[in-house]
């Protein structure tokens, strides 16, 4: 298929940036979206132009690196997939495809389609962990009884890959789905209880400090999340936050 691409080009963080139009031809419907981008970049390199910078790593939907806003949706028009899992069969011959970086002030553009998502790292560092003594006397995790329901819900929350699609798609650039998934995966397990109060207060404070917007429950994040993280996690985090706030 032949396509017209309107891609955001931005030299560096200080550049204003603009949409640039490219034509790509003979694109197979079996290609992944990133393979199509590879074809474009080969064309650009052969012409002596600067290739389009974009994030990618595992290319199998696990690492959370790819981060494109395609035709007005995070990770493109398919549901439950990352950009690397998006196939060109989702498009038609002659289509014009808009490709933009994930937009949020907390995700500044580094170059072209590459954004800096280290704000997520700082939120994780604020409390997204449990402190375990690893001196050699560590208790076997299986020695602590955990109900199947709690284990499954914690596992579901833990599948968040931190790609940032929730922020990109939210009209408010809210990071509530990401933060709530990280809070929930520990809040549901006994191992997470010791630091539960500090965790939620510190992670939410860091989220606010990074400049993310506020959640207005549009539910767009849940729909666009490639891992299907549920809004139940946001409600759980709100409960955790209210409980922690009342405890000081």
């Amino acid at each position, binding site marked *: 298929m032949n396509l017209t691409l*309107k891609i*955001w080009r931005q030299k560096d963080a200080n550049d204003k*940036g603009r*949409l640039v139009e490219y034509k790509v031809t003979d694109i197979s419907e079996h290609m992944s979206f990133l393979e199509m981008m590879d074809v474009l970049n080969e064309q650009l390199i052969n012409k002596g132009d600067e290739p389009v910078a974009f994030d990618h790593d595992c290319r199998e939907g696990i690492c959370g690196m790819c981060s494109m*806003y395609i*035709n*007005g*949706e995070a990770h493109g*028009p398919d549901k439950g997939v990352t950009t690397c899992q998006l196939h060109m069969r989702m498009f038609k011959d002659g289509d014009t495809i*808009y490709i*933009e970086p994930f*937009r*949020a*002030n*907390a995700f500044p553009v580094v170059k072209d389609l590459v954004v800096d998502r280290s704000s997520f790292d700082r939120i994780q560092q604020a409390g997204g962990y449990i402190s375990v003594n690893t001196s050699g006397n560590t208790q076997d995790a299986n020695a602590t009884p955990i109900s199947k329901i709690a284990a499954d819900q914690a596992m579901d929350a833990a599948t968040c890959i931190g790609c940032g699609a929730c922020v990109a*798609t939210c*009209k*408010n*650039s*809210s990071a509530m789905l990401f933060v709530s998934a990280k809070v929930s995966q520990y809040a549901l397990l006994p191992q997470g209880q010791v630091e539960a109060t500090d965790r939620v207060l510190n992670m939410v404070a860091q989220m606010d400090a990074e*400049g*993310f*917007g*506020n*959640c*207005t*429950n*549009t*539910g*767009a994040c849940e*729909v*666009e999340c490639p891992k299907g993280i549920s*809004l*139940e996690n*946001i*409600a*759980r985090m*709100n*409960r955790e936050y*209210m409980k922690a706030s009342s405890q000081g």
Partner: protein
Amino acid sequence: MALSALFLMFFLLQHFAINITSVFSADIFNEISHFMGTNPLIQYVMQPILIFGVVFHFVMGFILELKNIRSRTVKYAKNNGGANSSWMSRNMIWSGLAILAFIILHFIDFWIPELNIKFVQGDMSGLLPDGEGYRYFEELQHKFVNPLRVGVYVIAFVFLALHLLHGFNSAFQSMGANNKYTKGLETFGKAYAILVPLGFVFIALFHHFNH
């Protein structure tokens, strides 16, 4: 935001319960209106709480919107919001502004004349100028004679319904309520969001055609 929303939704239901009596009995409506308008607990405790709730909800709504706009200063060239969220959820500020405009009109229509009669003229009797019965039902009917005003009220209640269609369940989600009862609550929320504004529209139209 969510707390004030829950409070205002409860108030709305109470307001509707009183107003709908005007369709069935002018006397009952008059009695309840006189009680609400002269009871010290309602006038000097509940009414200030209500005003605070309304102002707080609007101020917080504006602050929330401004903060959210500032969190993304470079907009997308192409954004397909309809693919993942409802129109109502994305436009709460606009439906909210329409409701604010309506509340100002509603205050001019009912609340300011009420304050004038009671606290400027000092007439707490609630009686008509000729002294023949209470004035509340007549005032209500008089307001809905003008078709233009009825039209504005109907449009305002459409915006109220749109606001509630998202706002009802959003308030519960913000308060941390998302569990096995959520599906049922969503259905109840949709029924509330449609039936209560529809009821107010019915009351306005009823009095317009029966004055």
